[in-house]
Each structure stands twice: as structure tokens, then as C-alpha cells.
């Protein structure tokens, strides 16, 4: 079993789009897969038409007697399950702060839930707080979507530094370009710049595409409703690249 997190400290960069489609690709490749929606916005849950269960509270999820197991929902796709998001994640940080072993709570939870699964994928909220530290502890691989702007490269540098300072292994960080618009000069420039300097950069880029945006109206992974679309093929290829190593 491996744990892949789609993480960035920034919002709107394509974490959820990647998490949802990679989970779908993982299942299609024959892995029983659990997608954990850690973002209180619940976008990943929304894409699978799943509402948060009434009983799920952050305290239960992370605290001792968790009911997370009972909160797991089967998506419409066989062997793809989802642990839905909940509003109360807002208080996560405050909650974790008062706990012992507050950095490894998430890892312990995943260990408990993941017995039946070959693959766990985390859709992360944009933060650099205690929740993020839990994610850094738990994930084997952190996929970091980068929109090709100078600013986002700086954010990524900061993340690498944070890893360095906190003693996390930097090689678990795997950036990839997201929402790439080939027609934009700047995009082309930034992409080729990082190709030279960052050897952990994944080859596959996700193109900017109206089809990915349309996931909001379909409420399904783009890989499902438009499997032959270039953005779908990009997610598929990204998945293969990530697991091939």
C-alpha cells in the first residue's frame, strides 16, 4: 500500500483535479483505492456526488475512537472509495495542537483504515500548518501541482526549504505542471526553466482545459466522462509516471 498526497500551500492550482483523476486512474489500473478528502471545502467529495456523513467530526476522525471507518463511502466506480470531507476540518489545527503525537495522527489513522486498500490518495487543503505536517509525515509521495508562473516557483522553493529545515526527505516531493497553457509565452518559459534545474520534476504536464473545469457540472472525473480527451490522457500518463518509479 502506498500513500500519495496532492499537496500545495496554494489554492486553486489543481490539487483536487489531480487527486480525483489519479484516484480514478489507480482504480482503473486494478488497485483498490481510498481517496481521503482532507479539505473542508469538500471539492473531491463533490466530484463524486458524495455528501459528508452527518456524524463525521474532526475530533472523532483524528481522536482515539474514530468512526472514520464507518464514514467511508463507495463511489459509483468499483473499488474506488472515498472518506468525505467535513466542515469541522476548519478546527483541525486547533484540535491537533492540543494532542500528543500531533504530527503523526493522520498517519496512524491511515494505517488503521488502509488494510483493504492498495492505494491511498490524499486531497489536501492549502496550508502550511499542523495539518500539512501530518500530511508530510504520512505520505510516501507528495505531488505538488505548479501553475507555471514565477510566483508559484517561489512557493515551491519555500516548500523545499521547509522540508530541508524540518528534516523531511526532499526526494518525496514530486512537482508537476498544472493548468499549462501552451499558447502563453510565460508558461513555456517557466516550464523549460524548471526542467533544467529540478530533477524531481515529473515529465507529464496537465494542460489547461475547459474539459477539466467541466468536472464541476458533470460531477465525475474527466477520465470517466471524456476518457480520450488530452487532459484525461495527461492524468493517465501522470499516474503511470508516478507509479513507474
Amino acid at each position, binding site marked *: 500500500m502506498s500513500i500519495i498526497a496532492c499537496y500545495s500551500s496554494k489554492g486553486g492550482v489543481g490539487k483536487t483535479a489531480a487527486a480525483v483523476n489519479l484516484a480514478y486512474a489507480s482504480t482503473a489500473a486494478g488497485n*483498490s483505492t481510498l481517496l481521503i478528502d482532507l479539505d473542508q471545502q469538500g471539492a473531491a467529495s463533490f466530484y*463524486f*456526488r*458524495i*455528501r459528508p*456523513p452527518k456524524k463525521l467530526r474532526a475530533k472523532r476522525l483524528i481522536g482515539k475512537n474514530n468512526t472514520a471507518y*464507518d*464514514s*467511508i*463511502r*463507495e463511489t*459509483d466506480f468499483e*473499488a474506488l*472509495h472515498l472518506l468525505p470531507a467535513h466542515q469541522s476540518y476548519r478546527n483541525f489545527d486547533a484540535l491537533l495542537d492540543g494532542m500528543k503525537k500531533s504530527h503523526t495522527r493522520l498517519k496512524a489513522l491511515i494505517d488503521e483504515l488502509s488494510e*483493504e*486498500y492498495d492505494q491511498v490518495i490524499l486531497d489536501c487543503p492549502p496550508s502550511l500548518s499542523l495539518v500539512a505536517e501530518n500530511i508530510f509525515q504520512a505520505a510516501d509521495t507528495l505531488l505538488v501541482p505548479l501553475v507555471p508562473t514565477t510566483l508559484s516557483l517561489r512557493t515551491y522553493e519555500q516548500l523545499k526549504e521547509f522540508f530541508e529545515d524540518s528534516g523531511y526527505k526532499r526526494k518525496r516531493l514530486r512537482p508537476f505542471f498544472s493548468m499549462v497553457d501552451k499558447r502563453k509565452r510565460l508558461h513555456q518559459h517557466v516550464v523549460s526553466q524548471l526542467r533544467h534545474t529540478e530533477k524531481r520534476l515529473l515529465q507529464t504536464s496537465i494542460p489547461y482545459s475547459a474539459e477539466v473545469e467541466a468536472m464541476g457540472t458533470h*460531477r465525475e472525473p474527466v477520465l470517466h466522462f471524456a476518457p480520450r480527451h488530452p487532459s484525461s490522457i495527461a492524468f493517465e500518463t501522470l499516474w503511470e509516471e508516478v507509479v513507474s518509479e
Partner: protein
Amino acid sequence: MLESRPQLRWRFNPSDLESILEALSATGSIHPGKDSSSSIEIFDSFDQCLRQADLFLLRQRGLFYFSFPDGETPPELASKARKQGNGYFWQDFESPVAQAILKKHLKLRAVTRIANAKSETKAFELRNGDDKIISRIQIETITCPGRESTLSVLILSPLRGYEEESNLIALFLDAASELDRDVPSTLDWVLAESGQNTPPPSPSQAIQLSPEQSVQTAVTEIASFMIQTARRSEDGIKADIDTEYLHDYRVSIRKLRSVLSLIKGAYSKEETRHLKAQFAELARATNRLRDLDVYLLEETAITLSLPDYLQPGLERMFTDFRAERVQELQRIRRHLRSKKYAATVEELASQFETGDQPEGKRSHLPIGQVAAAEILAHYQRVSTLGSAINDQTPDDEVHELRIECKKLRYLLELFSSLFPPKEIKTIIKQLKGLQNTLGDFNDYCVQQVALSDYLEKTPRLGRNTAAALGGLISHLHRKQVEARSHVSERFIQFNDSKMKTRFKRTFKKSRKERI
């Protein structure tokens, strides 16, 4: 590996399908999914030993897999059969796990397809207000080729986390008068529908005698059952599925002959002699094929009993045996298909059916007392012979003991329904131990004779073969001497003081009543 999810099943009448679908669509949340069809093929041995062990061997798209009553096993157990042919032995499966499981149950038997069916499935999805699937519904229709009736089942599979919402649908379905929660398992239904509901009955199940019934009716019942059993084996012998068909055939005939000679006077002397002669002839026709089967079944064990460098010498002999077996099987097929055979067996069987055979001296005596007396008499004989055996006793007397033990065993088995089952079970278990040693002793003798025979009669035997046979014969001789040396010790184990009182307790009372 995800745990399999619980399913709810309802049976319904195929003619109600339309109205059920209508009622479901009235819930407003049902969407058609993918339809599919598949075939179900069930494999088992003639005696259904897999099913007896609650195990189903199924084949789909050329691939075998197991199904336990609580669901399918993980795919690792799926195993492709190596061979195309009439039957599959445990060795014919690739997966070592499958081999181990099958070997344990099948032993020398092969599996064949005992039933098959077609399954047509219409799939539906139940969705909630968010258009999220909460449950899947399958409507499965199963039919067996050439049969009228169908099994129609509605299967509700709630998705994980949506059990409560699905429950409302389940309540709705429960309330529908067309749907019945009482559903046979698909495989049980297919077997029943294919006329494979129960395995062929074993003698101890089928032969239920009462002590008061007459000797003649009891013997007739046994004979009639044995001849039916033999006839049921004929197809398997002709199709050459496994060697157990012929073995069963011969055992049935042997038991039939034994009951005629052990319970004398059931019919007139003339009639008894006539029957015995007829059945002896039927048995004799298959002697050679059985011998060859035994040699070939032992091929590996026999070969391994020689040192490496002598082993190749045996190839010639086994090749000869295999070739002879092909011929012999052809002959037996012709024999079993011949008009003469059919007429003979038909006539014998119908005699036992009608049950008006000429009477003998003991025809009207109650079987309970006669059987008890015979058992005691043969036990007495076994005791006398066995006690006399020491290391100097000639082999002939050991053979005699073996034959007496066999007679006693048949009597105990054929008439077990007349006596307390627990006592009979204990006696047979202990007797078996003694018989095994005696059987080994006999097998080693018989094999030596067979090998010497082959050595003598086969022209142009190579030096290697001759050497291998010589080695084998002396090996068998040593084993024979060894088995022989255990006989008296095994006899004492069998015939302890408890055994003596057990025989008295079980059979003496019935005999006294007779006198």
C-alpha cells in the same frame, strides 16, 4: 483486497418481471446499467466428493475456480487445467494450492462437468437526490439447457456507506408480494435442476434392513442395489474418466457374489449356483484391465523404489502396459456395449426386481438372526486362524486369514443397518488396520507373480529391463517378508479382549433368539 459486500436476494416468478420493473421505476431513482450473460459449469467427481466437502469447482471462460458456500475464493486459486479430455485429475491443475485442495478430496478420482447453466443478468442502478448510486440491482435469470424451469433472482447490492438508504428499498421489495426472500443458492438450484441433487447413494445409506425381514428379501435388496451401482459405473468405465469407476463396478459385483455365498440358502441351490456363475463371469471380463490400472497407478511409486540407474529399465514395461491397456479398454467397451452383456445384466437385474426367486433352506428366516450368526461364525474363524499364526506358519494360511477377514468385513458392512452403528464402526476401524497389513502382504506377492510373468512371457527383453525387473522383484520380496512379519502383531492389536466381548455383546443376543 476489498472485502466482499453483503447482498440481499429475492426470488420471483419470471412472469412477474414486468410488474416488478414497473414498481421499481415508480420509485423514480432506477437507471438501467450494463446487461451481461455468462455460463456456469459445475465440476465434480462421480461421487460428488467436492460438494460433500461444501466445495464447488466451477469453470468460466476456460478458467477454473473454487467457490465456497460463503463466496468466491481469491483469484490466486483460479487454475487453468492442463489437459483437454474426459476428466481432470488433481494433477491437471496448475496452481499448487488448487492441487493440494483437490488431491485431499479427489484422491484417485477425476472431475467432469456434472451440471451447466446459463445466467442472464439485467443490471440497474439506484440513485439518490445527488444522482449518486446507492445500490445496484441485478435481475438474474438462470436456465439449464434442455430444461423448462428458470430461477429468477433479484439481487440488491448496497454500496458501502449507503446501507441505510438502501434499506428503504429493501423494505419496499420485501413488501412486494411477487418477491420472496427464500431463495435457493444458485449452484444448489443448478445441480438439482440437472438431476445432480444428491451423489449416488453409498451402500450403508441405501441398504436399510430390518431384523425381522426374511433372508431372501434382504439378500435380494442387497443384490439389487449392487447391480444398480455396477450399472451406474458403466458409462464412466467406457468414457475412461478415472479408474475408480471400474473399481466400484468390480467391488459391487464382488459384494453381490459374497452375499450369495456368505448368506447361503436365500435362494435354491440351483439358483444360487447359477447367479454366482453369471456374476463371476462379469467380474472376470474386467480382471486384466483392473490389473493394468493398478500397475499404472503405482508407476511412480514402483519406479522410485529402484535406484536411479535401474529406473530407465522399467520404461519398456510401463510402455507395454499402457499399450495393452488401450487394447484392453477397447475390449471392455465392446463388451459393455454388446447385446449379450446388455441382455445378461438386464435379465439379472429384473430377477432381483420382481423378487420371485426359487426358495432355499433359509429364505424365510429373519435376516437379523442369520446375519448375526454368520458374523459370529466368521469372527470365530478369523480368531482361530489369526491366533495360530506365528513366524513359521506357511504363507497359505496368511492368505486364508486375509480372505476370512474380507468376508467378515463384507458381512459387517452389508448388514450394518441391523446392528448398533457405534459398535460396527469400531469393529470395522480395527479390522481395517489388520486388513491393510494383510493387503500389503498380498499385493507384494501378487506383484511379484505379475512381474515374473511379464519377465517370462515378453520376448526380446533388454538387459536393462531384465535387471530392473530383477531388482524390483527382490525389493517386493523384502517388502512382502516385512509385511508378513507384522501380521501376528496386527492380529493381536485387532483381537484384544475388548474385541471379543464387543462381538459377543453385539451379535450374541440376536443369535440366541434364533435358537
